[in-house]
Structure formats: C-alpha cells, structure tokens
C-alpha cells in the first residue's frame, strides 16, 4: 500500500452563463496551481457528468472540494453522484456576500473584481484542504 498523500480532487462549476460560475472556475485554478499545487488536482465536471470511469474512480470514496457558482450546486451534486465520501462545498455566492464591494463581471475574461473574488474563494477552499490534511494527519 502506498503511503503517498492523495491529492484532493477539486471540481469547479462549469457555469457558462454567469460571472460567478467563471469565478468558480478561476478559483479552482488559483487553488490547484498557486495556493495548494501539491495537495490538489482539478477534475473536470463534464467527465463526472458523463460517467467517465477513470474520473469517477479518482473521486469515489474520498474527500473532495466542490466550488459552485450558484445555488444549484452542480459541482457538489456531480461529486456526490460520483461516489465522493465527503464533499466540502465552497460557494462563490457566499464568498461574495463577505466582499460586498466586489462587482464581478465577464465570463471568458473576468474583470479585476472577478479575479479578486476568485482569489478569495480559492483561499476559502485552501482552508478546507488544510483541514482535510489535518484530519488525515498530514498537516
């Protein structure tokens, strides 16, 4: 049995109609590339939706982080349907409430406020990843 640390799967919402969905996607990149590159990996929600076996095996039975843009929580539902044992939910719409001055705009290209919101969301997600590591005794 390998004693290596399992990277936590991170699944952002694929929302294409709203800035908060785009912020969720950007937050996943900030988390997995800048803040916790050694502890997290991004899994495409579309693969889980389609039922891709490899993607499902990678999330089944373990903890995962969902970053959702709206209350429909597609990422969290996708992870739950794929067998994730514990889904830690990060909601961009909750994060934005704590940063009332931010006015995120854009989908393909977020404005400055959108990027700040993504960063704040990623920092929330990083705390969740650290908590998971502590629970696993890796902190």
């Amino acid at each position, binding site marked *: 049995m390998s004693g290596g640390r399992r990277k936590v799967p991170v699944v952002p919402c694929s929302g294409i109609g709203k800035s908060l969905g785009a912020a969720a996607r950007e937050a996943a*990149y900030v988390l997995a590339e800048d803040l916790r590159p050694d502890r997290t990996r*991004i899994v495409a929600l*579309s693969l889980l939706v389609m039922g891709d076996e490899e993607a499902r095996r990678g999330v089944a039975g373990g903890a995962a982080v969902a970053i959702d843009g709206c209350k429909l929580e597609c990422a969290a539902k996708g992870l739950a349907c794929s067998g994730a044992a514990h889904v830690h939910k990060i909601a961009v719409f909750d994060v934005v409430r704590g940063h009332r001055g931010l006015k995120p705009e854009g*989908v393909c290209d977020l404005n400055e406020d959108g990027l700040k919101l993504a960063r704040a969301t990623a920092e929330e997600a990083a705390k969740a990843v650290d908590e998971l590591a502590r629970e696993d005794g890796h902190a």
Partner: protein
Amino acid sequence: MPDLPKRKVGLISCSGEELAEGTVTRRAVRKVLETLRPGDTVTLCLPLFLAGGEGERAFARHYPTIAVDGCDKRCAALATKKYSAKPAASVVVTEVAEASGRGAIGTARRLNEEGLRLADAVAGRIAEETDRLLKRKPGSAGPASGRGAR
C-alpha cells in the same frame, strides 16, 4: 397565426476544466452567443443535465442543439444524448485544430494567441452549423464576425 416561439439553437460546451481545449469551447460558445449569432442561440449548462435541470433537458428535447467538445471523449455530446436527446450537430476542438494545423494553445487557465485564434475558428464552425440547422443560406445571417466576445 399563433405567435410561435422563435426557433433557436442550444449550444452545450464541455467546458473541460483540465484541458486548454475545454477553455476553447467556452470562449467559442460565448463568442457565438454574444457576437456571431446572438438572436439565434442560447447556451445550455452541461452539468445541469445531471443536477436535474429540467429546463435544459426539455429544451434539448424540443430544439436542435450543438455539442461543443474539447476532446474525443465528447462529454457534451454523450451527456446530452444520455439525459435528453442526440445533439443535431457536434464540433470537436481537437479536430478543428488538427484540420487547421494549430500549434500549442496555452493552458486551461490562460489561452495564448494561438488558442484565441483557435477559439475564433471553432466559433466560426458553430455559427455555420447554426445556420445549417436554421436552414439559412451561408453569409445571410448574423452580425459581422470578429473577436468581440473575448
């Protein structure tokens, strides 16, 4: 005559977060929606099919859809067929890239100039398919093409 709802085409991008080609699908779809065929298209959110979005499922059952996928796994096309109805057309970014001999396109987080050009080419393909599905003659529809949806 009854006032029938305007026939529109639904665009479903895979949005694959792991691959730069997934980012190309998003940018291309947004360009068609915002610039190339704004009155003729809507976007459908792929994960909503799984999360129980009855509106998305119903639309895709009754209106033509175009699945826009980043790779040959074709998640958007397969999931649309699985949860609703077979897409009327399918565009795959890697096939468009291969046909046009594109080089490296950047990362999923940030496309480079080549990636942006590829997104424009994919958007053009989607617009052509939209016209075909709406039975329009080539060149008779939509605002002038450009890169305004960036």
